[in-house]
């Protein structure tokens, strides 16, 4: 009698692998289908028209640069924090982790309203230095707020993976804590830090909820897409969306390629 779980040749069928592959394919399809759909629905002419549209171009440029500013500013301030969290044990450390994750769970429009109390006209910052509402720095602040957890968490994981005794050895060889940080800890955690930066930048680019509260104008691409969808319908919104999508995919593919090549070289 043949085994129902076996093929004719007698080899067992790898059911677990097959089921897992099937389920995994469904998720992948779920991610790819809308993106492929939007690309296929747009003609080359529509896309090139959108790419030539001055409003689209400036929104894309604003979106990329504001997210980049946010990422750079948070890298400078967030990396030391991530390092401290990875190295020091202190009272309230787990509360600090919870606080860092807060922007992920707060609804983003709520985050925008909350940010108005800090950088808006009536805030202490706003009345002292001028309101950031309706400005590119304001947009960067909104992007930073919602995306900084990705950077800090990734950098923290990277630092936690660096064995402490490598840093200790460096100290006994004559390196100051600062030199040890820049010559041992950062180079060994750079992959995670870079991943965190890419994630943060990407999350910043895609932000709509918090940004639209802080600044409807100047318009980021997500806000422009939203406005065109409301005012002119799907076709107009789609071509602007596709332009940003293509630029983002190209940038992230290039960054991943560079990161991968550097890690292979090491």
């Amino acid at each position, binding site marked *: 009698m043949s085994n129902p779980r076996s093929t004719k040749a007698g080899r067992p069928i790898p059911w677990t692998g097959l089921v897992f592959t099937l389920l995994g394919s469904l998720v992948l399809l779920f991610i790819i289908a809308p993106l492929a759909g939007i690309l296929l629905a747009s003609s080359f002419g529509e896309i090139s028209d959108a790419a030539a549209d001055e409003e689209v171009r400036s929104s894309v440029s604003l979106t990329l640069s504001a997210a980049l500013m946010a990422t750079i500013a948070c890298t400078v301030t967030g990396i030391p924090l991530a390092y401290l969290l990875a190295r020091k044990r202190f009272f309230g450390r787990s509360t600090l982790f919870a606080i860092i994750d807060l922007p992920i769970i707060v609804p983003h429009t709520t985050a925008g309203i909350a940010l108005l109390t800090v950088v808006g006209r009536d805030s202490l910052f706003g009345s002292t230095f001028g309101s950031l509402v309706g400005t590119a720095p304001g947009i960067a602040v909104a992007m930073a707020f919602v995306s900084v957890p990705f950077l800090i968490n990734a950098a923290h994981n990277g630092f936690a993976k660096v064995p402490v005794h490598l840093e200790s*050895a460096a100290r006994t060889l004559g390196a100051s804590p600062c030199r040890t940080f820049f*010559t041992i800890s950062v180079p060994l955690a750079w992959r995670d830090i870079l991943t965190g930066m890419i994630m943060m930048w990407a999350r910043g680019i895609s932000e709509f909820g918090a940004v639209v509260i802080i600044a409807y104008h100047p318009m980021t691409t997500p806000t422009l897409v939203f406005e065109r969808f409301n005012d002119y319908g799907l076709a107009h919104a789609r071509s602007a969306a596709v332009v940003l999508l293509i630029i983002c995919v190209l940038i992230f593919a290039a960054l991943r390629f560079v990161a991968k090549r550097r890690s292979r070289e*090491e």
Partner: protein
Amino acid sequence: MLELHSINRKLGDFTLADLTMSVSKGEYFVILGPSGVGKTVFLEVVAGLIRPDSGRITWDGADVTFVPPERRGFALVYQDYALFPHLDVAGNIAYGLRARGFDKKTVKNRVQSTSELLGIRNLLHRKPQTLSGGEQQRTALARAMITEPKVLLLDEPLAAVDPREAERLRRVLRDIHQRGDTIFLHVTHNVDEALYLGDKIGVMLDGTLRLVSTPEEIFRSPNDREVADFLGLRNVIHVDEITPDGCRAAGVEISTSITDGSVTHVWIRPEDILLSEKPFESSARNQFRCTVIGWESSGRLLEVRISVDDLTLSALITRSSFDDLKIESGTVLYCTFKSSAIYCF
């Protein structure tokens, strides 16, 4: 001179307790102790990476307890070498000099000469991950020695290499030690390593330094039973009673030159016990009828276990003596040892 004064440090379940010791310039000091007694913590305290809860560390009389590791000049070589994986061998070796701001040319020259000394000049462009254990250890030693440390702290430096490489590295350590007046403070669980390398040996058990001695003296002066057990000493016997002629242990009267009433243990080296088929006249004061209860090989010699009433002893004899005495389990023999061969503590 490096001095530790009553150092205490509690770290989790482990405590360094009242550690006091001094090491002269140029001395090779080995801390011997079983694995897991906090020898690494001890080295990190000396290096300045962990602050003691109390006590002081001085260098030539100056207090360095709170001097940060980078300004202390005590280099630490970890058991797993702690080589920087993102730097090649040359980059690793040069690290300490670059941290001290030496110019490129000096760094290059000194990397060349130090790598030559450690026999790794041909490996300078390799990444640490591609090296054997012995090569990694040489790189770690070169990286530490190039900084000309006042104290070189070595954490089980030979534990992770194969026995032949360990033997070569022992010679390397002795050679580089003899080239200057750097203090080598080396922790290990290996008694042979301690005997070969140490000018002085300290036995650390449960976070305390229980004995400091020279390799020549250490086996003659184990000051307590735990130290004796750790050193693998045979024939350490608990004394039941001090008698006018010596002591009584496990019901056997042993003639010794004990004069100190506080003695609790005596120790007879296995190689000092003679075995014979018949009793014989000699100056030795202790001769007992005994029964062979077993034996095992101990290198080129055989360790024969004998019982004298309730007392079990080990004697080391050659294989030819073993054959001559026709030893089997239950063979009745005579064991003889001199009073002067008995150490008391």
